[in-house]
Structures are given as structure tokens and as C-alpha cells.
């Protein structure tokens, strides 16, 4: 054993964290740091890249290398970091706003290129940091502070999006399933190519209060009931599926990652076409 524990990756002087009581972020942070410990990765080998938002504050509490960038651009920064030093383990922590709303373009292209990094996306169906406005994952008719009567936009399915764009590894769970989450993160980090872990999370302060329940416990139970293993989900009727979402590993491919492919095609001794 490496002797690492989840605490090896936390910056204790920065705690306690600022997240609301009942927020899923603390559970996800614990799962992430436990996954790093079980993978025996030194904090010096890991770069945690964050965006902006509640989950984007996670780097504040981490003792790995960290790059806290601008809203929506985490995957673009992470792409540069990974290609700048392919030996680093690069993990991007993003919310639904960062990953697929303002940063949707980078999300699909990082998946398409198959950059060898892991995205852990906390999906709490709204913008928590700015006061509970709707995002691109807020479900149709979901109530938020900018959709008081319900949003007229349907939400993205992150995992479908990543799969369609070409991601090698796609998995979903919730912050209720803490152990499954840790294992999923471990698998995602170990998997070559672009890996996505979507963590459906609870925001009792806003999304829960307006749409489900303001109680953190009730929110966790709501997530537990909504989440259905993918095999079972596939056997459900369309009406049942609409009330649930599939969890566990959804995509597991071994397409070569961008760097491997780039190096294969562009050998230093190769003369490009049209060379004088």
C-alpha cells in the first residue's frame, strides 16, 4: 500500500469547506481523494483542473497541483496541461454549467479528440453559486430562479452527449452511491482516453427546494430512487424511463487517445507532404 489516504490530498488549512449543508460536493470530494489514494498517485503527479461554480471551488481544498481556470474552459486548460506533460494525471472537476452549458463546445471536442484525462461532472441541475438559475441540464419545466414557472428548455443528457462525441469511458452515479462513485472514479482515471463520470448530485438549497424537497436527506433518497442500474433501465417502459436515469458504466471503449495517435502519425523523422 502507498500509505496515502484521502487526507493526503486535502489542504487541511483551507477547511472547513464553503458548501451548503446537504450539498453533494463534499461526498464527491471525499470519493475523488479516496480514489487517488487507492490508485497510489502522489499529489505531485495529479493536476486537478477546476472551472467556476460551487464544484469549481473544490481546488481550494485540494493539495494536488491545481489549475482553477475560467468558467467553462476547464477542459481546454486540461487539454493543454495533459499535452504539455503527458505523464501527469489530469482530472477536470466541473459542474453542469461548466461542462455542458458555457463549456459545451470544449466538452464534445475533448471527448471527440479522446484526450487522456478524466472529467468528473457534478450535475445538480442548476447554477448553485449564482443563486439557482437554470442550466443546460435543468429538466424541462424545472423551476429555478430564472425559470419560476418552469424552464421551456429540455436538459442535456451528459452521458449520451459524451458517448456520441466519442468518449472512451462514460459512467454515471449519484452522490448517494458514495462507494460506487469512488470505484467509478478509479476506473475512469485508470482508463486511457477521455473518461466521464457524471455524478448526479443534490442541491437542496435551490433545485431541491424548488422541485423536490429542501431536506438533504429527502434529496439523497430522491436520487437513490431515481437511479437505476443500466440493465434494469433498458428493460423499463418509456414512461418509467422518463422518471429515472441509468447508472453504472455506460460506455467502455479502447479507442487510442489523441496523444498516442498524434505521435503515431507525426513522427519527428517524417517529412510532411509538400516539403521542399
Amino acid at each position, binding site marked *: 500500500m502507498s500509505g496515502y489516504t484521502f487526507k493526503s490530498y486535502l489542504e487541511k488549512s483551507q477547511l472547513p469547506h464553503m458548501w451548503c449543508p446537504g450539498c453533494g460536493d463534499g461526498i464527491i470530494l471525499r470519493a475523488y481523494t479516496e480514489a487517488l489514494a487507492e490508485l497510489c498517485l502522489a499529489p*505531485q503527479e495529479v*493536476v486537478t483542473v477546476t472551472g467556476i461554480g460551487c464544484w469549481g471551488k473544490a481546488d481550494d481544498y485540494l493539495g494536488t*497541483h491545481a489549475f482553477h*481556470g*475560467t468558467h467553462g474552459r476547464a477542459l481546454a486548460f486540461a487539454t493543454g*496541461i495533459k499535452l*504539455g506533460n503527458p505523464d501527469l494525471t489530469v482530472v477536470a472537476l466541473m459542474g453542469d454549467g461548466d461542462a455542458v452549458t458555457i463549456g459545451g*463546445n*470544449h466538452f464534445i471536442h475533448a471527448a471527440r479528440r479522446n484526450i487522456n484525462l478524466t472529467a468528473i461532472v457534478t450535475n445538480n441541475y442548476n447554477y448553485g453559486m449564482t443563486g439557482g438559475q437554470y442550466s443546460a441540464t435543468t429538466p424541462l419545466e424545472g423551476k429555478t430562479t430564472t425559470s419560476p414557472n418552469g424552464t421551456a428548455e429540455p436538459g442535456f443528457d451528459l452521458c449520451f452527449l459524451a458517448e456520441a462525441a466519442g468518449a472512451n469511458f462514460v459512467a454515471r452515479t449519484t452522490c448517494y452511491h458514495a462507494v460506487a462513485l469512488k470505484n467509478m472514479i478509479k476506473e475512469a482515471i485508470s482508463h486511457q482516453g477521455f473518461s466521464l463520470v457524471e455524478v448526479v448530485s443534490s442541491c437542496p438549497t435551490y433545485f431541491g427546494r424548488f422541485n423536490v424537497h429542501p431536506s438533504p436527506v429527502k434529496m439523497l433518497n430522491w436520487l437513490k430512487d431515481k437511479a437505476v442500474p443500466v440493465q434494469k433501465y433498458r428493460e423499463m417502459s418509456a414512461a418509467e424511463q422518463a422518471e429515472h436515469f441509468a447508472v453504472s458504466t455506460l460506455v467502455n471503449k479502447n479507442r487510442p487517445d489523441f496523444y498516442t495517435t498524434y505521435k503515431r502519425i507525426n513522427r*519527428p523523422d517524417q517529412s510532411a507532404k509538400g516539403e521542399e
Partner: protein
Amino acid sequence: MQGNEACVYAAIDCGARFYAGYPITPSSEIAELSAKYLPKVNGIYLQMEDELGSIAAIIGASAAGKKSFTATSGPGFSLMQENLGMAIYAEVPCVIINVQRNGPSTGLATRPGQGDVMQARWGTHGDHPIIVLSPSSVQECYDLTIRAFNLSEKYRIPVILLSDEVIGHMRESLTIPEVEDLIIINRKLPLVPAQGFKPYTPEEDLVPAIPPFGTGYIVHISSSCHDESGYSHNAPQTADNLVRRLHKKIEANQEDIVQVEWFGPEDAELTIIAYGVISRTAKQVVINAQANGLSVNLLRLITHWPFPDEQVTQALKKARAVLIPELNLGQVVQEVHRLNSFNTPVYQLSRIDGEIILPSQIMQKVEEVLK
């Protein structure tokens, strides 16, 4: 060779190994040549989905230790502004080449312009310093690209090479020095132990020695207000100290950063202040004027920002009049007005139709002024 091509050779010669960009006229040759040559030196060319991602990727690669650059033109440069501020604030070196074209908006995509002088200075939000260099020949595209990387590494700040369509596409012969004869500056590394290391502790020159990710040092880089540890910190004094230090590290080294060229008689009656493609026109005017018995010289701005206050002040003090021809409705001229406490008449000559200002047009203005 072309100006745009010279930029790529210079970047590779001084050690740049990562390019991320989005093709845009009139800068695309920089992308194309980078795609061709970077793999030969074990570098990477990456075509991003847009310019927001392009600048983010070069900032990321630089934080991971690679000298990195991108190239663009007006519309793409506009998209880069947010993360340009991030690189300034987080002190990540990188080079951005903006081959200016006529604007605003899509404008005349294939025609030259000089409308981005103020955007290069003030395009990103908040108070910030910046270094901007302006080449006026193919040789200078090479030399100033090297210089851009050197200044960027030395002061840990993005440097913008503000070229233009004519300089970028023009072909001239140039001298490329042997790589071992080049002066190449690489960012400094910390000399203190990794234990308790604070990456943003400024050294005597006010520049922190931030190692790349992946060494024994833990590095925390943040776009949020941060203290010396790199972790976000919201105290008023932290915010004040940081932004003032960022300014001071550039202001204190004005002499090292600012470059100009004087051309023509020392004590001329009229000084033309010009840069980029128009400084070439102005040079011809200085030569023609001399032949016609008119006393004209040129102050060519090689460094745009920080602004050459001292040299421009000197021009305003000495000359009877100052003339600023630019391919915009007056951007550098405003800075000249700011420095003019001598009541020296300042004249402006603008052209924004996508054509360059001809020597005859400047000459006509010179004759009017000196009449």
C-alpha cells in the same frame, strides 16, 4: 520568407513546443507551418474548437512547462480576451500573435488594419499590465517573436505580437541566426525547498519562480484572487497587493521592455510617430522629405505597451509638430495627447478602408503642417 512564417521559425528556435489555435485570415500560415514543423521537434500542434479554447490550451501547456503560442486576428483576438486576463493574473507565460486585419467584426478579412492597439492594451477586464510588440519587417517578425518569448518567460506575462496583414504576408529576405547565437531566456525555477513552498512568493524582481506542474513542488494556479500560496484568498489587502505587484513588475522594468527606433535627422521640425506597416511608409516619407529640404524624422514604436512615454515625450518636447498616421481612427494618437504638456501641435492621419496609407498622403500632410 513571409512575416507569418518567420514567426514560426523564431518560436521553434527559441524553444516553443506547443501551439494551439483556430485558423483565421490573415494569420493561418502560422498555424500551417506550426503544424508542419512542431512534430519534427517533438512538439505538438493542436487545432482547437475556437479561440477561447486555443488560448486556454496554450496557458495549460505552459503551466505544464512547455513554451506555448497561438496566432489569430481581430475576431479571434476578441474571443481570447477573458483568458488573456487569466494568464496575466495567474502569471503564466505565453505568446499571442495577432495579425491585424480591418475591422470591426468580420470587417475586411484580407485587408490590413491597426485597430487592435487599444484592444491589446485594454481588451481584458480589470486593471492589468501587458506587453505588446509591433514588428514592421519580416526580420522583425523573427526577432520580436524571440523577444516576445523572452519577455514572457522573464516577467511571467503573456506577450502579444501585434503584427498586421501586410507584415504577415510580405516576403523579404532575413537573417536567421544560429540557434546557439540566440539569446534565449527561460522562466526561472525555485531555489527553495518544496516543503512549505509558496509558488507566488515574489522574488526581488517582483516575479515569482513558479515551477511547472509535475516537479516535486505542488503548484496551485488560480484565476481567482490568490495569495502567495496560489490558493484563492479574498482579503482586500491580498487583492490590492497582487494587482499592484503585477503592474510594478512591468513598470519597474520599462527600460528593459520598451524599444523604439529613431530614423532621420535628430532635430527635425516634424516627428512622425508610426508603427507596423505604416512605419515603412513613414520611412519613405522621411527620405523623400530630406530630398525636398523638409526636416522630418520618424519615431517608430517597436514596443506598443507599456507605452514608450519617455521617447514620445522627448518627441513632443523637441519637434515643432508631431504627426501620427495609423490604420484606425486614432488610437496611438490618444496616448500622444496624454503626454503632450508642451502644447505641441499633434496631427492625425487615419485610413480605415483596408488600404495602407501611401507615402504621398503622409507627404501631403507633412507639407501642410510645415508650410
